[in-house]
């Protein structure tokens, strides 16, 4: 399951009635709407809209990110620099998200918050997203977490694309620098921009996930090359290295002295095939992976663990209608953990493995209403010292139901540089960290708003 930022499953301390507290809920919605209209509304990344003159719906399913439509993928492939030449203002974007969160069981409260039914501004993103100069473009983001009162450099992707031909085949190729493997990917079937980004700090999340599924986020930096051959075959290779601990701490990425350290470079690879059938059906199938040598707990006297992740992914989109859009994605990731060092240092098993499967489907009507569903399953070996769950099993199963309402982000919206979305989301678990009993304690209901805007967008005259 994608991205429920969490405080850990073990903090579910009390089972309670799932009936929503309607008074709290209504109050929360009113508070959120007040927050929305008090602030300025906004898009996926409205600075991209500011640069291109195109509304969010041109790039994104449901007129809001992160799911990309064909043009959105092209925009990213060509390095975030496309535009109509009218933009004279810096491509700055801000996104503010607030939500009401209810979990089925109360949880250990975060400082200044309750054990349940919390209303909070979850995140504030500030991004430089668009053309830097010449053919170089970027998506670089800083995050403020008002719940934990922390700033962090979160996602950085800098690209330069070129066009050419090899043996009569058109090639779009380029170089890329990023701080997370997969951040540069064009498809929403791989972990970084998978499914919805609507999450809450007050919800739990499963303990186990593959290395490629976010554990390296903002902790590494990598450089590599990519190429799209004939608009059909995409290949990419990038090498990452861990950033200095002091630098990470200064950038807001908490990295204690006993955090895992990765030795040498971490190679990341990606291959994908795509085809568009008569501008109606779009299909992509691909594979991706990485390999890393890890010093567990930064203990460098016992050798390294070798972690190998390999994933398969697929995307289908129905693109044949102006009012109806269907997007489906699926991925399976297999992680092989050869724990030569951890078995000595932490008494883990000599090897473990983890398998993650996720699939989702979104239907967007009129670029405005977007119901979605996702199923997710994690399975693996049993190893309490490695996966750190009560019974040592990483197994988790569940589903997500979500509906999003984005009234703006279309051609007839008040401004292309501003957008907002209202979401309601339910996350259900049938198994959580190896246990079916009490798994539903972690079930979570969220309702929230996200507002995005480009502060300089109104300065651009078209």
């Amino acid at each position, binding site marked *: 399951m994608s991205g429920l930022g969490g405080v850990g499953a073990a903090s579910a301390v009390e089972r309670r009635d799932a009936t929503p507290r309607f008074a709290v809920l209504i109050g929360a919605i009113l508070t959120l709407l007040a927050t929305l209209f008090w602030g300025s509304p906004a898009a996926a990344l409205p600075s991209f809209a500011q640069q291109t003159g*195109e509304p969010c719906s041109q790039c994104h399913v449901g007129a809001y990110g992160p799911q990309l439509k064909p043009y959105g993928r*092209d925009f990213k492939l060509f390095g975030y620099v496309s*535009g*109509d030449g009218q933009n004279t203002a810096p491509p700055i974007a801000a996104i503010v998200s607030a939500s009401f969160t209810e979990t089925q069981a109360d949880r250990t409260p975060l400082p200044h918050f309750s054990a349940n039914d919390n209303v909070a501004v979850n995140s504030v993103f500030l991004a430089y997203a668009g053309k830097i100069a010449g053919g170089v473009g970027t998506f670089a983001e800083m995050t403020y977490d008002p719940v934990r009162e922390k700033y962090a450099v979160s996602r950085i992707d800098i690209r330069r*694309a070129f066009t050419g031909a090899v043996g009569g085949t058109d090639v779009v190729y380029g170089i890329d620098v990023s701080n997370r493997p997969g951040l540069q990917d064009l498809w929403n079937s791989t972990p970084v921009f998978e499914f919805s980004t609507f999450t809450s700090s007050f919800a739990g999340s499963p303990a186990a996930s593959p290395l490629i599924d976010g554990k390296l986020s903002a902790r590494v930096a990598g450089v590599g090359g990519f190429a799209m051959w004939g*608009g059909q075959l995409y290949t990419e290779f990038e090498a990452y290295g861990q950033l200095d601990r002091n630098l990470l701490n200064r950038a807001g990425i908490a990295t204690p002295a006993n955090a895992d350290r990765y030795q040498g470079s971490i190679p990341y690879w990606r291959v994908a095939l795509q085809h568009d059938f008569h501008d109606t059906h779009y299909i992509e199938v691909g594979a991706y992976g990485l390999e890393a040598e890890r010093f567990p707990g930064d203990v460098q006297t016992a050798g390294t663990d070798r972690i190998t992740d390999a994933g398969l992914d697929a995307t289908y989109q129905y693109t044949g209608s102006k009012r109806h859009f269907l997007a489906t994605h699926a991925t399976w990731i297999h992680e092989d953990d050869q724990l030569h060092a951890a078995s000595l240092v932490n008494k883990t098993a000599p090897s473990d493995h983890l398998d993650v499967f996720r699939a989702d489907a979104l239907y967007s009507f009129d670029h405005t209403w977007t119901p979605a569903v996702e199923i997710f399953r994690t399975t693996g070996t049993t190893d309490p010292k490695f996966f750190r769950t009560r019974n040592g099993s990483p197994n988790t199963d569940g589903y997500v139901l979500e509906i999003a309402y984005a009234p703006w982000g279309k*051609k007839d919206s008040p401004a292309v540089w501003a957008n907002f979305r209202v979401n309601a989301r339910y996350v259900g678990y049938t198994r959580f960290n190896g246990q079916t009993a009490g798994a539903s304690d972690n079930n979570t209901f969220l309702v929230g708003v996200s507002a995005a805007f480009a502060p300089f967008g109104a300065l651009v005259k078209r």
Partner: protein
Amino acid sequence: MSGRIVRIADAVAKAYAAGAVAGVVGLMALAGAAWAASTITVDQKNLKFSVKELRIAKGDSVEFTNSDDTQHNITITGQGFTANSGLQRPGQPFRAPFVKAGAYKVSCGIHPNMRMTVIVE
């Protein structure tokens, strides 16, 4: 005397006739040149150009139409020549004459995957 006048009149008539013929031929040549310089239409639909490659004669023009419901931004480069349509709204045509032989790259500034080539022969 009258015979001489007749010869002069005949000569004048022949000169007029020759002039008329020359004039007609000239006009036809001019008209032919105008007819030869034609305009070829290339449509933009579903974020694609209707052709990947277009061969035209020197002096021909290409009219780029926009059948999408989104705006485009035609950019033409080649042979030391650059043209930009500016913001091309749906339904709005953009016409570009090609007066020099060679290959020209045509793309859309907003939609980078829209690319085609015009070859002027």
